[in-house]
């Protein structure tokens, strides 16, 4: 069983919070789910959409057809037309001027949403509650107690009367729809609860990232609002204080990242989060952090580029940039987690890596992963026990031996003396410097310093690289990263079921240092290799060859700002299966 529910209307009508309540209710009923949000800026009036796809099995990708559509206006029908099938139940208000539906083949459930809302609560905005009730009634066996809890939580501050009124509005919609089904002899959708008893969470990528940072002991966060990374700044402003840290909104991104560098130089774990245009502004500072060997974490929640590009749409077009940004020979660790759980774990690890190697670490994500919620593995105490804070060669004590901040060492990593340590002069500079941090242009020191920095990642082995097989003896490998990895997996499981084709799914997580040996190992013996990417160039595929990949491959890519549909990906992968390179 799997269903898709969608609510669509104007920005400012409460679409987003209604979608969240529905998603949480579905989750509380024991299902796995994925969401898809479409939004414009804050401005009232643009169309917004919240889709929830749920099943007893893991779901990630978006599918084309809807089972339930709540349409608040004509525009909602217009943008959803291609998603409506003859069995889609469309909930709408005849009073809202929707005329376009006449020609559409579907089940039309007309409810006086605004009238019911106004009659009961006195305000039309409660049409959200009425339509939520009606849409939940369409699923036989769906418990709605979470919605009731939410109504209490949201409105009890106002008055018990408002709580009661909203519950009534919900139930009125619920009963209306139940009656509609029985009057018209339409069978409700059957839902069978997932009963495996495994604890799960529901989380967005940005939430996973922010919580991972807090768990890792991030004490300073600086950011500047930008879609789709603003929710991280908002989360930090609200929560970091409870963990002994501070979050600062700076006057721009240059300031944000440089203040993060300042905080790290002083000795605390620090990070920033941004998206494309802001990331571009941070480039010089990332080079400075590399040169001064300052551990910092930068999250780039990608959106469509270049320039302002597609501020509210998804893309993975900053991969090449992340690896190669900055003038001069620089290195940074680049990590692209694939789901909210990994976001948590690898953000935690990002802080360890940054301090272990004394380097900038870039975490890549995108709008589709960052701003949508997915069911994920449960984060419990045992995970937190397993993840250990490792501050590397951090020195905040008076050492017995003579130490220099940029001392030449075998592994290239020097002791990270923080400025307050007694008896040691602290000095750092973006200029080339000697072991003490004093500026120098001496050629032999320069050469040794470059080589010292380059030794740091020479034996890097923290790749978090994974691959898994769907079916036995696969001859087809698919390389994917980010949330697309899970889209691909869902599709491959399905192709395997229907066509018997086996797949090897390859998931690079650390993209720099590039895991070329791991990749070649996983791809060995494959007849057919497909990269699936959300950018024009096929940026990971280019990296694969740039770093010496020997296998031939083909590319499936998308760069229109929308995530892959399950059906399209299914089709594309099938086509590539039989078109040998």
């Amino acid at each position, binding site marked *: 069983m799997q269903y898709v529910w969608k609510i669509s209307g104007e920005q*400012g009508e409460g679409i987003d919070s209604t979608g969240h309540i529905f998603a949480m209710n579905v989750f509380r009923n024991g299902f796995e789910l994925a969401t898809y949000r479409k939004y*414009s*800026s*804050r*401005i*009232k*009036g*643009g169309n917004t959409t919240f889709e929830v796809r749920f099943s007893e099995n893991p779901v990630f990708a978006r599918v084309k057809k809807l089972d339930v559509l709540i349409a608040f206006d004509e525009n909602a029908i217009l943008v959803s037309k291609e998603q409506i099938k003859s069995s889609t139940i469309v909930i709408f208000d005849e009073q809202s001027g929707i005329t376009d539906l006449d020609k559409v083949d579907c089940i039309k459930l007309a409810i006086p949403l605004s009238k019911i809302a106004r009659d009961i609560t006195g305000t039309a905005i409660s049409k959200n509650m009425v339509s939520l009730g009606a849409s939940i009634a369409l699923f036989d066996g769906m418990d709605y107690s979470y919605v009731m809890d939410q109504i209490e939580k949201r409105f009890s501050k106002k008055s018990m009367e408002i709580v009661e009124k909203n519950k009534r509005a919900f139930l009125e919609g619920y009963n209306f729809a139940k009656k509609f089904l029985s009057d018209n002899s339409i069978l409700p959708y059957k839902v069978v609860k997932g009963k495996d008893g495994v604890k799960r969470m529901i989380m967005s990528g940005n939430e996973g990232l922010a919580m991972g940072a807090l768990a890792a002991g991030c004490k300073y966060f600086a950011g*500047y*609002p*930008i*879609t789709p990374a*603003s929710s991280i*700044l*908002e989360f930090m*402003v*609200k929560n970091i204080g409870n963990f002994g840290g501070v979050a600062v*909104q700076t*006057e*721009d991104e240059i300031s944000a990242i440089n203040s993060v560098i300042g905080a790290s130089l002083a000795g605390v774990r620090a990070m920033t989060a941004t998206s494309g*245009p802001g990331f571009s*502004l941070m480039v010089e500072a990332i080079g400075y952090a590399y040169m001064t060997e300052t551990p910092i974490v930068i999250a780039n929640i990608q959106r469509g580029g270049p*320039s*302002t590009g597609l501020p509210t749409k998804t893309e993975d077009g900053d991969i090449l940039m992340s690896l190669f940004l900055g003038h001069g020979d620089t290195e940074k660790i680049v990590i692209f987690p694939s789901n909210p759980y990994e976001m948590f774990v690898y953000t935690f690890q990002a802080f360890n890596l940054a301090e272990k190697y004394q380097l900038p670490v870039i975490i890549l994500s995108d709008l589709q992963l960052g701003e949508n919620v997915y069911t994920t593995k449960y984060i419990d105490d045992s995970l937190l026990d397993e993840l250990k804070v490792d501050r590397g060669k951090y020195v905040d004590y008076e050492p017995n031996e003579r130490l220099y901040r940029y001392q030449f060492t075998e592994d290239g990593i020097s002791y990270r003396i923080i400025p307050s340590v007694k008896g040691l002069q602290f000095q750092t500079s973006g200029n080339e410097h000697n072991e003490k941090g004093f500026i120098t242009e001496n050629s032999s020191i320069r050469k040794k310093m470059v080589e010292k920095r380059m030794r740091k990642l020479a034996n890097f082995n923290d790749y978090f690289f994974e691959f898994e097989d769907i079916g036995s003896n696969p001859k087809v490998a698919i390389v994917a990263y980010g949330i697309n990895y899970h889209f691909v997996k869902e599709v491959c499981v399905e192709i395997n079921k229907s066509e018997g084709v086996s797949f090897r799914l390859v998931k690079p997580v650390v993209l720099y240092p590039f895991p070329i040996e791991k990749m070649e190992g996983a791809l060995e013996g494959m007849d057919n290799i497909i990269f699936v990417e959300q950018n024009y160039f096929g940026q990971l595929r280019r990296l694969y060859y740039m770093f010496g990949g020997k296998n031939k491959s083909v590319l499936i890519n998308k760069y229109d700002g929308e995530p892959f549909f399950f059906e399209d990906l299914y089709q594309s992968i099938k086509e590539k299966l039989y078109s040998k390179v």
Partner: protein
Amino acid sequence: MTSIKQLPYEEYFLAGNGSCPGCGLTIGLRNVLKALGKNVYMVVPASCSSVVQSPFPNSSATVPLLNTPFAASAAAASGMVRALKIMGKDAVVMVWAGDGGTFDIGLATVSGAAERNEDLLYICYDNEAYMNTGGHRSSATPLGTFTGTTPTGKRENKKNVPLIMAAHGIPYVATASIAFVTDLYDKIMKAKDMKGFRYIQIYSPCTPGWLLPTEKSVESAKLAVQTGIYPLFEIEGGIFKISAPSKAYLKKEKRKPLHDYFKIQGRFKHLKEEHIKLIEQWIDQMNEEYAALDGKKIF
């Protein structure tokens, strides 16, 4: 002073644009363009303005329009105005930027262009926060205000950018409001014929951002002047002059209670009496200072 009836009928910023009902910036832009006419190049950084101007498939602007990166408008306009001179074209180059693009990320380029006295008309429409990204604080956000990144109320006071601009020694600085359209119109007309860098800051309510009912947008702008929280003034050739709409409210006893202004806006709902007292003290002090400056050469 121009009367409402004397405002031109011509429209250069058209109806049907993508802004929210009650949006202050579009009222401002509509009247600014009435004053400037057709011979103007408009330079706009990332902001609500850059979104509302062209909802696909139309554009509501009828003058040449250059959308720039967020931090860059004053710089892009500088290049433009110099090029127009080289090409022998005579036109007004106007930057139309939000408070975020002016007070925060853009301040360095604004200051740079002012210091070079570039021949620009720089207009900042001030809705006191980053609205386009969903309502986050800017340094134009007043003390105590709720935003997405100041959930318990902003701790810092509003930055006084008009005075900072005046300190550059530029020919003209003014504050204006969308509630006093003729005053705004006259200020634009005056600035239009001047040479060099001119800075005008327009108070522009934002209905969703301020949690303000649609129909109260102009009312709140009026109250901002009447409560003395947003005094209107000009600094011409370094001489400070309180504008007519604000004149009466320099006196504390004439000012309307701050409460009238706060109560219609959700962004101030959480404020306690003691906070309001504090803000009142600040308003008193500012108005006293402005009264003392009135008519004097300050830069």
